[in-house]
């Protein structure tokens, strides 16, 4: 498949610059990042702490605005040199599954509703939304705590609920910022395997930021951020042994 054509269905960044602040205190987090993630592909994003991984993901996830450059999701232009698409919130809700570096669950909702709120916000009725949420909690092995509040759960459990929330609306794009950091190795592998299977099944384009050596070998392709630029690397693409 023609790379340009494939890219038109996926995540595309063209020369994206992000500068925090201005003048002497300005931080040049991204200095011209270009990358492309195809549908059905899970790509790793690595780099030293402070290299701009979170910044990159937040630009893609329509959470912060890039300073300049072009961002396309599924062929749709989100940002173009200062211009931005209008309803970014609906985009976040319907198209993008975001797993943050911390869980950021809603403290007054139990685990089930923290996940179910995504399909609810998208207009599904409560029963269907909760059924979908329960299904995901089972897959992520936190269904036994479905009725607990976030404050009653461990960091790892919270993170798995956050992952379930990101997947709940079956979004075409998933952006995960160190999703496995608070997880043990068994659960880390479970999550990454789930993401790879999901990508294959639904043609989801997924970016996973990670420092984790245990999961890194499973990516086929990796981008490395250095000095505000993204460099593409070949991954090992190791299969999961049963």
């Amino acid at each position: 498949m023609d790379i340009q054509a494939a890219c038109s269905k996926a995540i595309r960044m063209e020369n994206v610059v992000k500068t925090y602040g201005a003048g002497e205190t300005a931080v040049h987090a991204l200095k011209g990042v270009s990358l492309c993630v195809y549908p059905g592909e899970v790509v790793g994003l690595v780099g030293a702490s402070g290299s701009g991984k979170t910044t990159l993901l937040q630009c893609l996830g329509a959470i912060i605005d890039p300073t300049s450059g072009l961002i396309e999701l599924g062929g749709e232009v989100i940002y173009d040199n200062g211009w931005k698409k209008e309803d970014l919130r609906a985009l976040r809700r319907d198209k993008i599954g975001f797993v943050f570096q911390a869980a950021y669950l809603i403290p007054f909702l139990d685990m089930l509703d923290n996940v179910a709120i995504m399909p609810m916000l998208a207009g599904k009725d409560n029963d269907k939304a909760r059924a979908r949420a329960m299904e995901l909690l089972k897959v992520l092995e936190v269904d036994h705590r479905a009725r607990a509040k976030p404050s009653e759960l461990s960091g790892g459990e919270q993170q798995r609920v956050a992952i379930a929330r990101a997947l709940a609306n079956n979004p075409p794009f998933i952006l995960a910022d160190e999703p496995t950091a608070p997880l043990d190795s068994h659960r880390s592998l479970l999550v990454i395997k789930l993401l790879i299977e999901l990508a294959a099944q639904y043609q989801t384009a997924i970016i996973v930021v990670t420092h984790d050596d245990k999961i890194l070998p499973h990516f086929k392709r990796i981008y490395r951020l250095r000095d505000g630029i993204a460099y593409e690397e070949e991954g090992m693409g190791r299969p999961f042994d049963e």
Partner: protein
Amino acid sequence: MINLASKEIAHGWVRYVLTGIGLGLLIGVTMIMTGLVRGMMEDALSLARGTYADLWVVQDNTMGPYAETSTLYDDVARSIAGLPGVEEASNVAYLTVQAKHAGKDVRAMVAGFEHGKPGQPPYLIAGRPITKSRYEAIADNKTGFKVGDKINIRRNEYTVVGLTSKMVSSGGDPVIFLAMQDAQEVQFQKDNTSIYNDRNRLAANPKINRPGNSGLLEAVTDMQQSNHKVNAVLVRIQDGHDPEIVAETIRRWKHFEVYTYKQMESILLVKVIANALRQLGMFMVILAVVSTAIIALLIYTMTLGKIKEIAVLKLIGAKNSTIAGMILQEACGLGLIGFLVGKITATILAPLFPKRVEFLVFDSFVIFFITVVICVFASLTGIRAALRVQPASAIGG
């Protein structure tokens, strides 16, 4: 969609309810203040209203009988009763006394009235009307007297035969109704020493105590001891007659001051209790303003306390209306709890006040409406702040 407001409230309900109760106490105090103002107005009007009179005829150039002293002879009523358009006219006398019972002094206002005429006690809550013309009394239950109690006013003893409710003077003193004759006696009665002294003084006056004309001294003494005076004449107008026109006739032909009920009402509210009312009203306004500010601040800070959750909600794509709805519902819920707690507090505390506290449904409604408006307004300010929150701020720090 689940109701986010109810989930949030349930999550931190102790704090929420405590806030609501705090709010309620504030609203309760404001309600009592309003009740005191209303009570004062109702008290001031109660006696005048209880007479069911259409006109008050008083001494010329006075604002009597409640605002000023007014004295008329008791035959005035008869001459007024004959005027066209007058259904009936009756004498009334008002004076402040200390009524004694069982070693206790009660400050009260004696109201003298004529049987079956304007000025007689309105409905009784206990006992019976006065049947003997002498030495029976009907007391307001605020005096603390019971039916059957023997009470002393000046030198005479009266038996309480009936009780009224909420009949007080403009100063808030309970009313004791006596038959006209008794009231006149109380009002103009002199003690034995002064009767004795007066008589001696007259006897020592050679112009009056002339030899050969002993009848003169007797006549003057009688006149001096007489008590054929009253404070006002109450008039009820015949159906189909204009009180204004009848009043004008009395003014022109009899040279008395005449007030209609409306005029009497404004004398009582504007002249008699104006200062007290202004004082209390001023306090009420300040309290209302302070309560408003506190309620607004409370709800605003409550919203600001949720900024983080709101940012996460925005992050996952919740609509502004969803977020605003949540804040608004919580604010209104708080207002509702506050109002209910306030109403309960006010109802419990009201009887502890020595003066009448009157809760009108209209006032409750107005206070409820104002509370809701404050809550909505305060939460709108909060919502404005909340909606300006950048979703990225949820994940910063």
